[in-house]
């Protein structure tokens, strides 16, 4: 082992790494916001009772959950322009990530909706709760509490998946890694640093999520 790792390449480029983290977060936040809208719409379609809507939503979910994200990304960025839909790398990255996240969150939110106990709503009505109160305390909050852990795991996966968008040269943390690697040839140091930043990012998200769960959703442990 003659190789001497030199981490100066990391210390000298802290600014780039920070920028990469912000670009990654930017892509992920926008994609998750759009993906949640898709997920809510998908879950409503899945539980609507309308057969056509249900079929469309199911096809969407199954197709995007059973194909690799990289292929979806290439399809959006390289495939769609040939039918006239042209996007910047950033737009294609956000769109692909959002549609992918939407497929997974459709199933998560659907499970939350289907988990609502009708008896609880009746109990609320007999206690004299108003409609809005029932929606807030008996439908929305418990359902959110139930799907919360699964949704957080999916958000973590979205952060990890966002690294793939470097392949269509969308700028984010992994892109910064490839850029530095190609200029310094310090591949081990750069990629190790990037990996550890992802670990820190994931832990930070999990930490914040746990704090929110303790503050708002402690009651869910009493729900079956």
């Amino acid at each position, binding site marked *: *082992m*003659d*190789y001497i*790792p030199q981490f100066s390449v990391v210390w000298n480029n802290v600014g780039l790494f920070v920028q990469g983290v912000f670009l990654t977060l930017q892509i992920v936040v926008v994609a998750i916001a759009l993906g949640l809208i898709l997920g809510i719409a998908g879950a409503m379609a899945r539980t609507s009772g309308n057969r056509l809507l249900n079929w469309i939503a199911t096809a969407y979910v*199954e*197709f995007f*959950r*059973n*194909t*690799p*994200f*990289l*292929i*979806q990304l*290439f*399809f959006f960025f*390289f*495939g*769609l*322009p*040939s*039918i006239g839909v042209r996007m910047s790398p950033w737009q294609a990255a956000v769109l692909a990530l959002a549609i992918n996240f939407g497929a997974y969150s459709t199933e998560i939110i659907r499970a939350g909706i289907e988990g609502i106990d009708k008896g609880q709503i009746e109990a609320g009505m007999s206690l004299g709760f108003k409609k809005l109160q029932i929606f807030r305390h008996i439908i929305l909050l418990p359902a959110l509490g139930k799907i919360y852990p699964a949704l957080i795991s999916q958000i*973590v996966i979205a952060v*990890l*998946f*966002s*690294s*793939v968008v*470097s*392949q269509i040269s969308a700028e984010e943390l*992994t892109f910064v*890694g*490839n850029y530095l*690697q190609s200029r310094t040839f310090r*591949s*081990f140091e750069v*990629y*190790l640093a*990037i*990996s550890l930043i*992802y*670990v820190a990012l*994931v*832990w930070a998200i999990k930490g914040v999520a746990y704090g929110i769960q303790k503050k708002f959703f402690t009651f869910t442990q009493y729900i079956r």
Partner: protein
Amino acid sequence: MEDFTLTQILANLLIATKWTIALSAIAFIGGGLVGFLLMLMRISPNPVLKGLSLLYIEFFEATPLIMQLFLMFFGISVVFGLNLSTWTAASIALSTYTSAYLADIWRGSVEAVPNGQWEASRALGLGYFKQLRKVILPQAVRLSIPSTVGFAVQVIKGTSLASVIGFIELTRSASSISNVTFQPFLVYSLAAVIYFCLCFPLSLWSRRLERQFSFGG
């Protein structure tokens, strides 16, 4: 370059699919073996073994697979002066990735076996490994089958990322073919359909197993 017919494109993609399946199988078998050891370490009463396994699982679950591939192919090979082939690098990286997730899934199944089973087998005078082999694992395996099959889908999809280090499988081959034919829309659609045909049956199977086992209690 209009020489490529649809049949030729499809035939070439299917040839590459073979390598996707081979890499998935290697990752799943290699990952399964390592994952089993990790799971044993993770549930062992020894804090050092437990900590090491926890660290391993945390690292591989909290870093992107693409980064693990880069680290293996460009990073580790430089440090140790190895000249890893794309085959070796992709096999190792996907196996370690798979092992971390399988260890976590299997740990969950072992912990889902009621505590009374440990106590009862202890009361019958079985040692730790006999307890595991005769009482706990047979029940845990049953519980773990649906999620294990479900994770196979993630492994197959994960192999598409091996294309970024130059491993020629379905995704890599789709990129090459679309570069030659200038028909990215068609080629990536076909590749997606092939992946779907590989993954969807496994997803359905996993869901059916889940339903069967949840009724069995």
